[in-house]
């Protein structure tokens, strides 16, 4: 039917995306491990997307793997990232007309994402986040961010420092000054 060109385009796009995801490209971690990933899924990373676009899809498929040189892209982190993009590549795109950025930010993570990001090894978790940030996968960074924020919610500064292994570079005096300044936020009901 000719009634909605826009919509048919959308369907076509989805088909193309699905087709393209059958094409596998190789990604190489900073540790040297090489992993296969669907093209559409891999292109959720803006870094990979730009590389694929400047090299041409054919080149990427037939030649050397794409090297992800950042030290955070370890074998384990890359495996996790591929797991995530392979799960999420067919998510509907964000419609800015209707989905308020603020509402989206406040939305809770899906069950799958929660389980995915709940990694016991904090070093790996941070690798995944840093690597996703390096590869420019906004959705995955958001998942990491929401996870960290939900973990530190309601904790004291000291607990946060211990959990996230953050160095306290304030002197006791500086810290006291901030606490004094912020006394108003601790007002009891």
């Amino acid at each position, binding site marked *: 039917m000719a009634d909605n060109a826009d919509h048919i385009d959308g369907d076509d796009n989805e088909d193309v995306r699905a087709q393209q995801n059958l094409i596998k490209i190789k990604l190489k971690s900073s540790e040297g491990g090489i992993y296969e990933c669907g093209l559409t899924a891999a292109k959720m990373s803006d870094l990979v997307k730009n590389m694929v676009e400047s090299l041409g899809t054919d080149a990427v498929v037939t030649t050397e793997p794409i090297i992800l040189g950042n030290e955070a892209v370890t074998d384990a982190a890359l495996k996790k990232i591929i797991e995530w993009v392979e799960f999420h590549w067919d998510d509907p795109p964000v419609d800015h007309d209707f989905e308020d950025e603020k509402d989206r930010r406040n939305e809770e993570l899906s069950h799958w994402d929660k389980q995915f990001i709940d990694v016991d090894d904090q070093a*790996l978790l941070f690798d995944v986040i840093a690597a996703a940030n390096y590869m420019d996968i906004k959705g995955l960074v958001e998942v990491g961010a929401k996870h960290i924020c939900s973990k530190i919610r309601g904790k004291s500064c000291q607990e946060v420092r211990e959990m996230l*292994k953050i160095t306290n570079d304030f002197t006791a005096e500086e810290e006291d000054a901030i606490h004094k300044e912020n006394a108003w936020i601790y007002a009891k009901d």
Partner: protein
Amino acid sequence: MTQQMKHKKILTITIDDSEDEVEDNVRQQTQMYAKNSMDRFGDDLCQLLLSYLLLEDRFRNECVSKQFQRTVFESVVDITLNEKLIRKAKQQKETLSQVLATIATNNQLFSTFGRLVTRIYCMSSLVKHSLSYCHRLSQLRAEQLSDVFDNTSGQLLVTNLKRFTIIYYSSESKGQLSEFVAQNQSLKSLVVIKPSKNAKNNQNLPEIYNQLSRLPQLRDLTLDLYLHNILLNDILRIIGLNCKQLQRLALILRPTYFKLNQTLDSLRLFCRLKRLHLAISRSVVSRQLLEPLKLCHRLTHLTLDIDEMSDKLLTDCDKHLPRLQYLSIKTNAITREDLDHISSLPALQMLVIENCSKSDDLSDNDFNYLLSRSLKLKNIEVIEQKVSKFYCRKNGQRIYSKNSMDRFSNNLCALLLSYLSLKERFVFQCVSKRFQRTVFRSVVDIDIDDELIRRVNKFKIPLFIIMNIICEKCPNIESIDFRSVGYSNQHILELFPTFRHKFPNLREIYCELLSNSDRWIQLLAPLITRISGELSSKKPSLIFCRRLSRLVAYHMSDVFSGRTTGFWPELLSIFVAQNQCLKCLNLFYITYKTKEDLRELCEQLSRLTQLRELSLKLVLIDGMNSLLPALKTLVIENQLSDSLRDNDLIVLLSSSPKLKTMEIRVNNEKKFYSKVKM
């Protein structure tokens, strides 16, 4: 895009050119030598490079090239003759070997060479009279004190020594010690390795230390002590009071009791002490013993070799040892808590940890974490079962352990923290300086209805004070939601224009019209993008709002002053012209009399090209919606249930290019129509 690409291409070409040029130049200048050949270096540099060879290797490499032959010996300024070298030379029956052999065996030679001898490391007591020829001797190592006295005359053979090491000391030589001390006032370094084999029976030991304290020039002292019948503290007091120049002190303590109940309190007297080595073997060290370490504020190097370390030893070490650069700990077990304390040492650069027996559960991460937290720490050496493991700061930068959030950049940190609520941001700003810098950066919208602001409001803290605090912390605020400002707080909107400049990025305000609207609406109107709430009584204010993207009104006449009810196409036309950025319009009730009125309404609304969402309460007339080309959602509340046929609606749906969903409400029942995927 293509332009960019072109630009890039040109750039790469020029870079290629310049590289070629450089390479050509290099080729012309150093035609003869390949880059990777050592021939490219001149004699001076070659000599410098080879100056680090051992004597033996110099001989071995002499015939590498003529340049080597020229340069390899140039840098030899001192020779160490050791047995291995001599033995080798002997095998070849070289003349050198004969000379060396004579030196080694014929002590007569000392009468001629003696003037030149400045250091003696190993000395046979049979040849000690040769010492008297060595007038310039400054360093000596002897087995016993009696070795430096003539056997027959009892005369002291060495004077004005600078460095002296004595391996055994026995108290019988008390008189000799006194003379030695008197004749060697210049002594700067003294090592007493084992005070006496039978020190346990010795009552006179303190006397030795009395004598030692008469060496005012002493800079470096090593004492090996059996702590039997000795009050260590007394010894230290005597030495500390008298040897004011002492900078380095090594104490090897051998307690004879299992428990060591002494104190090192007198360490406070060693005001110039910079390096301390403390070894206590086979004993449980009481807390009091090590407590006085906290008095040595000038220490730069500290080595602790103790079996059991008290938990509290390193507590607050950053305050007591502000200059400590080097710390070496050899102990049974080191805990994470200890590492925490170590990380706070402000000047520490090198840390050596030797875990003698039980290897704790400390992992690579713990040490990397330690590196990342300390200000100046560059190297950590961890020795376990004689195998060393090194952790170093990379490229002079701080390295961060993988499981520490410190590893993230400011930008990523700001992004990760952007999902916190306003209150949490205030709480967490003192987690670290980076948190303080980044936690507020991502705040772009403020809702006066925020839980934090609401709560504080209860405590009668004026809202504008809170707004002031917030705007100082959050420079990036783009939108403020004032909807929940009630009548009690409506003055904030009147005040707001006066401190609006504190929100340099503010672009949007979401508000309700209040009874004082006329006093602020003109000033804030350029920022207002959304209005909600009841409009009719304040509609004169609306005229100033030209940037509205969302409007919810009960009746079209609410939007215009003066008019009460009815349909006014000319007004609608003005409204449409002035609100071109409207994206969402929600009108609860539209009055119109004729089909033409409705057509007019639709025509006007269709000029709102940005409109994405429209909610109207009206009677459906065929084909109306085809006039709204950008419409995506349509809600129709229909009172005449039989006038609506599915077919009409499907035609409507297919004739509106962007319409995706329709919601038809008939007698409180909802019916949805949406475009089906083809």
